[in-house]
């Protein structure tokens, strides 16, 4: 019988939640790396027991951890993330040039074809690659050096590269997203990159339709339709049907289109999940009601999903990497909150329950579907 393993990164350690295919009873392992910020944990699709974890601390900087047994044991990998060449400057909050400085790894994306190859999205924004299981890292400098870097500016969370999507149908195609620069695509395995932000409108930047400068919060793709992308922007939920060349808004009837997390149903490429957040000034659900919204039409028409979720006095946030889906026949949907809950819906969003209630602030949630 299939089982699921949920990899949870929190502000004070990592936790691993496991269950069988029913997803009713859960075992909780952790905290792993207690006291450290775990921005992201993700497993290799090639070897699901090969896990990578980003461990960081304001005192001790960045550490990378690797596991070859599904998280039972861990060993430190390489943590030297040195920008290629002279990194130059990006734009600071006040519009002045600011030197590129490595701060932490936000997102780890293992290769679809090689368990020893993994990509890291970092703050200040850049993408690195390791081909030796996380021991050594090399910047894919074509992104930072393609030309618009000096115009990139940090969002409130820092200038982070938080999203890396690999196209399963085309090994040469990759997408990344940066707050606050926008989305970018490479069609040659990461050597060259171009901004893909046409159609985004951001009223908080001087030119609302600029080529770069958009605060993209997260992007999601269904692996069967790699040319279709869904984006939760700072404000606006967006969709592209041409690999990011053009975007259109699909916020439709959402009560607010601010938010962070977005994901796509494992078996229904037109079914999308978001968690609307009141505003960029008030990072919590509308009216204290935690609601996931689901569209079965690829956007525009959204329905609230509330069964099992708190509908009063709830003022948590759901961060950008804190939503994921499993691949069981009845697709499970998962998300973690800044209040330390991890919720599961074993029925595609219809009903929810908390796997855990009281973890530290949840930064990321990834799900593995195991045989």
């Amino acid at each position, binding site marked *: 019988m299939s089982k699921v393993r949920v990899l949870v990164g929190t502000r004070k350690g990592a936790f691993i939640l496991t269950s069988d295919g029913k997803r009713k009873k859960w075992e909780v392992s952790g905290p792993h790396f207690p*006291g*450290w910020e775990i921005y992201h944990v993700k497993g290799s699709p090639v070897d699901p027991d090969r896990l990578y974890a980003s461990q960081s*601390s*304001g*005192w*001790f*900087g*960045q*550490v990378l951890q690797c596991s070859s047994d599904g998280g039972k044991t861990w060993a*430190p990998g390489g*943590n*030297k993330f*040195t920008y290629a060449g002279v990194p130059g400057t990006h734009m600071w909050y006040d519009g002045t040039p600011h030197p590129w400085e490595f701060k932490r790894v936000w997102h780890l994306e293992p290769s679809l074809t090689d368990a020893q190859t993994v990509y890291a999205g970092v703050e200040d924004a850049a993408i690195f690659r390791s081909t030796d299981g996380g021991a050594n890292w090399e910047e894919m400098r074509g992104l930072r050096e393609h030309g618009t870097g000096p115009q990139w500016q940090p969002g409130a969370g820092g200038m982070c590269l938080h999203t890396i999507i690999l196209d399963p149908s085309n090994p040469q195609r990759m997408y990344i997203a940066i707050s606050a620069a926008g989305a970018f695509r490479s069609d040659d395995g990461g050597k060259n990159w171009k901004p893909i932000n046409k159609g985004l409108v951001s009223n908080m930047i001087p030119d609302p339709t600029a080529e770069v400068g958009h605060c993209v919060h997260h992007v999601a793709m269904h692996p069967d339709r790699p040319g279709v992308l869904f984006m939760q922007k700072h404000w606006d939920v967006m969709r592209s049907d041409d690999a990011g060349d053009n975007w259109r808004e699909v916020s439709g009837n959402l009560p607010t289109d601010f938010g962070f997390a977005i994901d796509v149903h494992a078996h229904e490429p037109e079914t999308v999940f978001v968690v609307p957040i009141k505003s960029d000034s008030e990072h919590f659900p509308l009216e204290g009601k935690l609601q996931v919204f689901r569209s079965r039409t690829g956007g525009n028409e959204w329905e609230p999903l509330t069964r099992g979720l708190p509908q009063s006095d709830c003022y948590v946030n759901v961060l950008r990497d804190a939503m994921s889906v499993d691949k069981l026949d009845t697709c499970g949907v998962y998300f973690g909150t800044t209040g330390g809950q991890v919720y599961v819906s074993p029925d595609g969003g219809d009903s929810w329950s908390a796997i855990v209630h009281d973890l530290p602030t949840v930064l990321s949630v990834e799900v593995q579907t195991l045989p």
Partner: protein
Amino acid sequence: MSNPVATIRVLLPYHLRNLARVDGEVTLQVAAPVTLCTVLDALEARYPMLCGTIRDHDTQKRRPFLRFFACEEDLSHDSPDAPLPDPVAAGKEPLLIIGAIAGG
């Protein structure tokens, strides 16, 4: 003739002891001169997972929220090439690597 080798005691902060998987003090064999730089070189050689966690990989500068204490003195702003106090070089006193008290 090679430089004399001293046995140096180092006390790491809690999280770095966990990362390096050590309990209590670390003892290191350090060839003279005994300085912050040579002690940290020896520490990182024995525990490579500590590279980058105490001082920057590239600049070798102390991370901002860490301090170096020994013999009731704050050595954090001393030159990394300055000799450490004699009791540290003699192994009588440990070099303390301290995480600043901050955060939540």
